[in-house]
């Protein structure tokens, strides 16, 4: 029996040793030029940043920005055509997929923070979200302090969980955390009274409320738990590629085109249901459009 266990372990080691053999072929720019194609990582339901419309096509604010980056890339490499492949990513696999070369440009809804910067790099911040909570209007809840002893929903594996935990510790408030496996499930917990509040990025909350069965029943309230810069993600240690991406994003910001894109996705009706988020641009993002930056979340929240 022990011999069989040993065989299993050694087989595992062989499989795991294989990645070490793979070689990294220099730079994304070279890869794009040689292959004539670029792979965009997309999310399937991060409204309105990156999601699938009713024709199963990836759309959203970040998808459009990425398309502009690809245009800039084409001009930079003097290529007449560049094939774009879309690969769906999840919050679990997006970082491994960028590091292992599957995805060149992740156009999703990824928070730029210090821990992630050890693995990957980010374009200048193109969206800023505030972590707050959604409640049912009828509950009358206005602040986090009213949640003591009550069930509060959040999504598994998101930064909100850490924020709530840190908040609990400082203020001696005891939440009962309940977890949804994704945002729609966590919202369902609020909708079905499994939780009295849902703590999450405010743009996502706004999107979920607008598309819910009774949008007028919900309201976003309470203090801002964290400010999070959201950005397009790329491979680390590839300065030539990052320079092209950064310049493309900065050009969009300088020309004012990014304001038009913002208005299209946050202030006007969007697919698939044709509802509008009515989510005006925050002062923080206006500031970042004037002076672009790829600083991580920690830079905004140090007290």
């Amino acid at each position, binding site marked *: 029996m022990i*011999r*069989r266990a040993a*065989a*299993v372990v*050694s*087989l*595992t080691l062989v*499989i*795991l040793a*294989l*990645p070490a*053999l*793979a070689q990294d072929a220099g730079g994304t720019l070279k890869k794009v030029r040689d292959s004539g194609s670029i*792979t965009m990582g997309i999310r*399937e*339901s991060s*409204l309105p940043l990156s*999601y*699938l*419309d*009713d024709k*199963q096509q990836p759309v959203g604010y970040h998808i459009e920005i990425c398309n502009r980056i690809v245009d800039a890339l084409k001009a930079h490499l003097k290529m007449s055509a560049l094939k774009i492949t879309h*690969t*769906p*990513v*999840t919050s*679990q*696999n997006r970082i*491994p997929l960028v590091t*292992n*070369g*599957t995805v060149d440009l992740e156009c999703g809804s990824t928070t730029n923070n210090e821990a992630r910067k050890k693995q990957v790099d980010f374009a200048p911040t193109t969206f800023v979200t505030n972590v707050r909570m959604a409640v049912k209007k009828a509950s009358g809840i206005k602040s986090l302090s009213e949640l003591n002893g009550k069930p509060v929903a959040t999504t598994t594996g998101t930064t909100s969980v850490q924020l709530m935990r840190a908040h609990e510790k400082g203020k001696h408030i005891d939440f009962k955390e309940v977890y949804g496996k*994704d*945002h*729609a*499930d966590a*919202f*369902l917990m609020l*909708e*079905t009274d499994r939780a009295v509040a849902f703590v999450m990025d405010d743009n996502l909350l706004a999107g*979920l409320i607008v*598309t*819910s*069965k009774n949008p007028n029943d919900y309201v976003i309230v309470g203090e801002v738990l964290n400010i999070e810069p959201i950005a397009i993600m790329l491979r680390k240690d590839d300065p030539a590629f990052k320079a092209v991406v950064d310049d493309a994003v900065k050009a969009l910001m300088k020309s004012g085109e990014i304001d038009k894109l913002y208005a299209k996705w946050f202030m006007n009706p969007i697919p*698939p*249901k044709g509802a509008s988020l009515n989510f005006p641009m925050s002062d923080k993002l206006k500031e970042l459009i004037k002076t672009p930056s790829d600083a991580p979340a920690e830079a905004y929240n140090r007290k």
Partner: protein
Amino acid sequence: MGEFDFTVWQPSLPFIRDGLLFTLRLTLVAMSGGIVIGTLLALARLSPVAPLSRIAGAYVDLMRSVPLVLVILWFFLVIPFISGAPVGAETSAIITFTAFEAAFYCEIMRSGIQSVPRGQVDAARALGLGQAQTMIHVILPQAVRNMLPVLLTQTIVLFQDTSLVYAIGAKDMLKAADIVGKNYNRPVEMIVLSALIYFVICFSLSLAVKQLQKTVAIIR
């Protein structure tokens, strides 16, 4: 929740159809590939060559002891390093399921082969058939026939297990339902729809297997 809003079923149908086609393709490829590789593995496990049978045994034990969802994740991360290029979620899912199900089909084929009476082997050898000929013409046909219902039942399990490809973002039926549920914010309605579809398909298959069981059984 009170009221359900089943109007979301209508725009979801093209998504569901594409997802279902992928699910079926994945099931069929993984089944045929899995049975072939599984049979080879079973032969390796039963072979008198010790290293061969040990490696096959280790492979089967490893696959059977790790949750499928983790296997799917590992293959997705590791395949690009072996193939040298990313292969995409769909191809990765097909490779993973074939490799994973092979371990289960191997166990079924092994008991199938062992269920063939020893006298059959002796008789075949006495008639002058070689070892390989005996295996191909005498043992395997009977083993497959004995185990056909079990092989198909495993395939129904496989059909349901394909729902786990959500972990790498391949778009199967459940994933398609999930996306529509999220983008329209109607998760419950979509989960009910997928439950119905899975039930109808699996139940019909399982009735078919029962029917088959009656007709192919070898009477001794």
